[in-house]
């Protein structure tokens, strides 16, 4: 019993690491640009398809294709901010919500047209591999994904706190006007923030590919997880989003283990509604509301 519980927690933590990359992206965009990106899950989907096609056409290992999916999605993010999001900033809720919402619909359905609804998987040497410690087993692919996800989160943290551009980003998040007075160009900072957030989503996609199928609607579950984690971890708080994502992963895994295999989604939605009802400001304080 205890072993089953421990195994469920481990599974949850490992997948939670990937959720964290998506959540950190959502919370970064929200913190800096003050937009909720409904399409974040679709960028995970794009990252997955990039890795899938690199693997199936050129035999590139999904983990190696991280080096391609991240820059490509960074570029998409800069373009997205410059040509679309920038135009709706300050226009009120309707355009801000429905722009990224429409983008999410568009990307899902274009993917459906181009790639059909079929599940695509990549088999790697380590896809089925796992090792045991006592009664617990650790799937290698998920362990690698978790490790790289944590590494990327740490790099982002150092970037935000140790570099001028990162500090400028945090300054723009705290107070856009004062940041402008200090000589920070908000447009540039916003482009980098959205670019980085999408690059993280792309990384999540590539990391998932060895053990998770790609299909056009795959982003939905990730973005919903991210929304819950972002609220739970306090909007705009990156460390909070990371911790909350790990918690979400564990909650989902426990739900699947003890309530039923089809209960994953119900657990997510109920957690979302409970969070919004009981702790709408999240569990942790933060530098941006």
């Amino acid at each position: 019993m205890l072993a089953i519980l421990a195994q469920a927690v481990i599974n949850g933590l490992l997948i939670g690491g990937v959720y964290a990359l998506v959540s950190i992206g959502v919370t970064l965009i929200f913190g800096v640009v003050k937009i909720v990106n409904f399409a974040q899950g679709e960028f995970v989907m794009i990252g997955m398809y990039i890795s899938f096609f690199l693997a199936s056409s050129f035999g590139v290992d999904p983990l190696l294709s991280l080096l391609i999916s991240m820059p490509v999605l960074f570029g998409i993010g800069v373009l997205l901010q410059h040509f679309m999001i920038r135009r709706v900033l300050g226009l009120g809720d309707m355009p801000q919500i429905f722009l990224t919402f429409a983008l999410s619909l568009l990307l899902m359905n274009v993917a459906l047209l181009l790639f059909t609804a079929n599940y695509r998987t990549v088999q790697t040497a380590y896809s089925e591999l796992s090792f045991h410690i006592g009664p617990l087993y650790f799937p290698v692919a998920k362990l690698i994904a978790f490790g790289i996800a944590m590494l990327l989160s740490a790099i982002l943290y150092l970037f935000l706190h140790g570099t001028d551009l990162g500090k400028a980003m945090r300054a723009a998040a705290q107070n856009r006007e004062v940041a402008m007075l200090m000589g920070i160009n908000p447009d540039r900072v916003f482009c980098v923030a959205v670019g980085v957030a999408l690059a993280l989503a792309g990384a999540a996609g590539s990391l998932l590919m060895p053990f998770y199928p790609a299909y056009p609607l795959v982003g939905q579950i990730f973005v919903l997880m991210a929304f819950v984690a972002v609220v739970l971890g306090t909007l705009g708080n990156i460390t909070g989003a990371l911790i909350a994502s790990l918690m979400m992963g564990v909650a989902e895994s426990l739900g699947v283990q003890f309530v039923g295999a089809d209960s994953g989604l119900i657990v997510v939605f109920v957690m979302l509604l409970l969070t919004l009802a009981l702790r709408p400001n999240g569990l942790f304080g933060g530098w941006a509301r």
Partner: protein
Amino acid sequence: MKSTLLARRWFSVAALAATALVLPLIVSDPFALDIFIRVLLFAFIGVAWNLMGGYAKQLSLGHAAYFGLGAYTSTILLIRFGISPWIGIIAGGVVAMLASLPIGALCFRLRGPYFAIATIATAQVLMLLFLKFRDFAWGAEGTTLPNLGDAPLMMQFESRAAYYYIALALLAIGLAITHCIERSWMGFYLVAVGEDEDAAEAVGVDTTKIKRHIYLISAFLTALGGTFYVEYIYFIDPNTAFSFNVSVEAALVSIVGGIGTLWGPVVGTVLLEATSALLQSWFGSGHGGVQLTVYSLILIAVILWRPSGLIGLFTDLYQRFTYASAARAKEVPLDG
């Protein structure tokens, strides 16, 4: 001047209503009638969404919850208890109103994007619940409605035209309610809430109450649409009744047409459904994704270039035209 404008407006509404009334007498092609019925139904649901999403700017993406509750209430009453859908449609509306109270209490604490996300979650939770209710509500397989032949008292008709007239009546009711609310104190309060909730609260608008009231009305109307839809297609399952596409389309037609305007949802639905029908005749119905791809492109274009919706485009052109003719009329006495 004002009275002639008013008279002209009443005349155009009367002309539109007359056209809508005689349309099924001229067009008998069932495919075309089916498109007209879909236009009327989705325009009606758009109108219901627009009351809350357009005027009070509470951007719900979960109106499928009420569509589904209406559909399931009347179907359960019909199949389990043999009660006519004419009573069921009202019962469904009442159930939706009751459901909107706790859902509203939860979601109205949130603003902007998080309100939208919470409403998505409520509709999805309801869908998942109805997937579980195997004994009482047929679970995931759903059920077909019993075909009683030509039974007007049970809302079943041989001719499609009858369904057309019901949908038309629903839309007329929705528009009339919107028209009344728009001109009442409630309409002004709603617009105040939509413009700036804190400011509205500060000048004494009970924003919680007004949001609750408009949500009741909006949920009731949406549920009527749900009942009508399952009566029309003779089939119900959770994926149809609580379809996320219903939530999306309700918002979409209003935004594309003109959010927070009386005729916006109608204009939006006509445009989107016409596009959809054209796409179907070009690509066939086999290509999943074409319709929503085009819808989302239209939505993005409207948001980036015309956030007030297409109806704004028409009124702009109309005003430019009338001002131009008014200016020409003025010039004459000055010269002479």
